[in-house]
């Protein structure tokens, strides 16, 4: 055994290398303040390992990325690993800050360790870019919106801006190449650059540390001369264990977040991650052409200023030097915290931002809920929400209908038109909705015909003549009639189940004493051309035809008030206001809005 080890050592010289590393002697001996460096290194190793494992499943394509990340999360081990990878990236940024400040405080950057300091500082922006390129890889709405803004920031750099932006995006805009480029940076270029810098950094650390030879005896009496291994290492491992414990706790409890898949048709107010909040806040104070001062000049100036520390720090007096360094540390930390705090406070007071964030959280939860039951097709996860009436209904309604119609009821987020000029469509086709229509008071209210040109038309007069309280007929009998007719029409709308005696009675009323068929067609009775068809009233196909062409003879003909033709031209779908899929989603939601979300 011994001979083999000797044989190896003769060739590799590993004993000397090992003793250079593990028999190092730290200034003032081992201590807790030195643990930040080692924790950073081991977190980096953990990031590389977890990252490699994630790479084995992740797919960097705009259509598949979200689905593959969701797929990773389906295995509890995968979810845990992704959680570790996510939270460790945040932990590394915190630790990096701590480490830099520690080195600054103790003045450990002084000669001959200038290169340790400079390579260390260069690692910081790389680390940031590393996390920034990692966040959009899931192709979530948040990640893509963030990289969009980050790309624009890059683009606003004078002279080279547009070129750099194009380089990052792989074109004018975010597209397939963007994700490939981000992936390349994240798992290819940055690991190589960071690895190289880390090597120089560590080589310099070791080179400039005093060490004891392997055969030296241990000086137990002087703690300052204790070696790195195991006296510093045990402290490092205790710190690391605590940090990894915290990270694992969050990774196990929450996993890494997975937000709603990116949809280029949606607007979203991205906020940078917490470590960039100071920059976000700083940017508020610059605008337009001077923005690059906040985003480029100031951070670069800070970095260069710090790098110059070993060369400008020539203060002889020990205490003055300590005081200067402390002032710098406190100023940096204070300025950073101040800007960060203002940014969060401002958002916390902005009701529109809070509402949008809450809505986005719901959207993300909905996407995950849908992914549990719905398959993700080759069109990608984006289709989960695009095919979901609950998600699309309110949006389509807000875009196409809300300028005239409201949609407000007890069980749904209220969509109220600012100047309603058409019926409130909440619950259209249900017994309640039709009952309101037939009510002599309510038909002329804002919820029905009150703001249309039919306000004083034949229909309103007919209903009022039929059902207004004139003292001749008992109101209970009238209400029974209204109820029966409403049920009969709800059966047409297929919101009411199979036939009941009420429905039969209602149908009879519609055809006879209700006088409906004088103007409306109802199955085999009445004519088209004077009022909308009551056959299949408010059913899916009826609504589809009405919305497509309200001025069709089956509906309002030339009496149509203001409603546009949403599907005017079957032959040219691209010229219609609504695609046939959109129309289906809107109708599905209108007929079933109960669990709707905004």
């Amino acid at each position: 055994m011994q001979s083999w080890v000797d044989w190896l050592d003769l060739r590799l010289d590993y004993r000397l290398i090992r003793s250079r590393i593990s028999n190092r002697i730290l200034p003032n001996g081992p201590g807790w303040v030195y643990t930040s460096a080692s924790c950073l290194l081991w977190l980096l190793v953990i990031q590389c390992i977890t990252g490699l494992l994630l790479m084995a499943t992740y797919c960097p394509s705009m259509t598949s990325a979200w689905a593959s990340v969701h797929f990773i999360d389906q295995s509890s081990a995968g979810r845990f690993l992704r959680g570790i990878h996510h939270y460790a990236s945040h932990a590394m940024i915190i630790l990096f800050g701590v480490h830099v400040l520690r080195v600054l405080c103790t003045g450990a950057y002084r000669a001959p360790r200038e290169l340790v300091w400079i390579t260390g500082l260069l690692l910081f922006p790389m680390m940031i870019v590393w996390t920034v390129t990692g966040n959009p890889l899931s192709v979530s709405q948040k990640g893509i919106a963030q990289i969009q803004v980050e790309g624009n920031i890059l683009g606003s750099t004078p002279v080279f801006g547009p070129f750099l932006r194009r380089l990052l995006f792989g074109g004018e805009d975010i597209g397939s190449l963007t994700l490939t480029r981000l992936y390349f940076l994240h798992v290819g270029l940055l690991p190589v650059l960071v690895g190289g810098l880390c090597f120089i950094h560590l080589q310099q650390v070791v080179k400039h540390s005093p060490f004891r030879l392997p055969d030296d005896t241990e000086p137990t009496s002087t703690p300052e001369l204790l070696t790195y291994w195991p006296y510093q290492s045990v402290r490092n491992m205790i710190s690391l264990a605590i940090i990894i414990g915290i990270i694992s706790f969050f990774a196990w409890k929450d996993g890494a977040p997975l937000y709603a898949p990116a949809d280029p048709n949606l607007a979203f107010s991205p906020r940078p991650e917490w470590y960039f909040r100071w920059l976000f806040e700083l940017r508020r104070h610059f605008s337009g052409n001077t923005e690059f001062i906040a985003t480029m000049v100031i951070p670069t100036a800070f970095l260069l200023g710090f790098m110059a520390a070993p060369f400008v720090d020539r203060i002889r007096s020990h205490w003055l030097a300590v005081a200067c360094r402390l002032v710098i540390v406190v100023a940096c930390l204070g300025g950073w915290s101040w800007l960060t705090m203002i940014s969060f406070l401002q958002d916390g007071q902005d009701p529109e931002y809070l509402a949008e964030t809450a809505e986005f959280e719901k959207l993300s939860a909905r996407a995950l809920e849908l992914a549990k039951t719905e398959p993700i097709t080759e069109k990608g996860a984006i289709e989960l929400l695009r095919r979901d009436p609950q998600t699309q209904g309110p949006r389509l309604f807000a875009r196409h209908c809300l300028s005239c119609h409201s949609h407000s009821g007890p069980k749904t987020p209220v969509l109220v038109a600012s100047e309603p000029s058409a019926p409130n469509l909440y619950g259209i086709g249900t017994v309640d909705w039709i009952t309101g229509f037939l009510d002599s008071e309510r038909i002329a209210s804002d919820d029905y015909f009150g703001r249309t040109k039919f306000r004083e038309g034949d229909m309103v007069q007919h209903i009022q003549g039929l059902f207004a309280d004139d003292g001749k007929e008992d109101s209970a009998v009238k209400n029974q009639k209204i109820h029966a007719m409403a049920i009969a029409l709800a059966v047409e709308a297929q919101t009411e189940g199979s036939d009941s005696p009420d429905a039969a009675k209602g149908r009879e009323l519609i055809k006879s004493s209700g006088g409906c068929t004088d103007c409306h067609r109802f199955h085999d009775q009445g004519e088209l051309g004077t009022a909308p068809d009551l056959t299949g009233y408010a059913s899916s196909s009826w609504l589809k035809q009405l919305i497509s062409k309200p001025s069709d003879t089956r509906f309002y003909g030339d009496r149509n008030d203001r409603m546009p033709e949403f599907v005017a031209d079957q032959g040219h779908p691209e010229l219609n206001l609504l695609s046939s899929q959109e129309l289906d989603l809107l109708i599905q939601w209108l007929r079933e809005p109960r669990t709707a979300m905004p």
Partner: protein
Amino acid sequence: MNRRELLEWVSRGLAAGVAALVGLPGISFFLGGTQQQSSAESQFSRLVKVKDLIPGRPTMVPVMGQKLDAWILSDRQAIGRVWLVREADGSLETGPAKQTVRALSSICPHMGCQVQLQSGGKNFVCPCHRASFGVGGQQLPDPKNGDRNIAPRDLDELECRLVCDDETGDNWVEIKYEKFRTGLDHRVAGV
């Protein structure tokens, strides 16, 4: 030059040649390999009928077109969005000459987010940094920011014309979609 120097230079030259053989195409590939095109730019695309726009109320309309995204060609992809604002007095019956529709790019000139219509429909606001614009696209003072608008310029107005379709007699809005660089106080085409 002695023999030693000659060999040194030959070695260096050959090494540089090998490096250039891989490096130059590498750099050219990495810096140049970007491909995105969309068909609707620099030509008029037909968006909506004038009568479908409600006077005085801005409507967001996607500009559809064919888009080549690196190696994927997609048909009918939204290549951009515009806000169409029909002047409040334009009546339905008059011909194209009597009506006015303005087209504003939905891209905020500040950082490129999508501007939204403020509830109430009286002005646009960008969700990112709350830059606000009137329905005509002009910058509005921001009271929260000392009356200074964070956007460097007004919303970009796009070339817009009204065309009468001879077959159906409908008046259509057509626009020429363009993108402009963000973050500048004047318009520069491109991204």
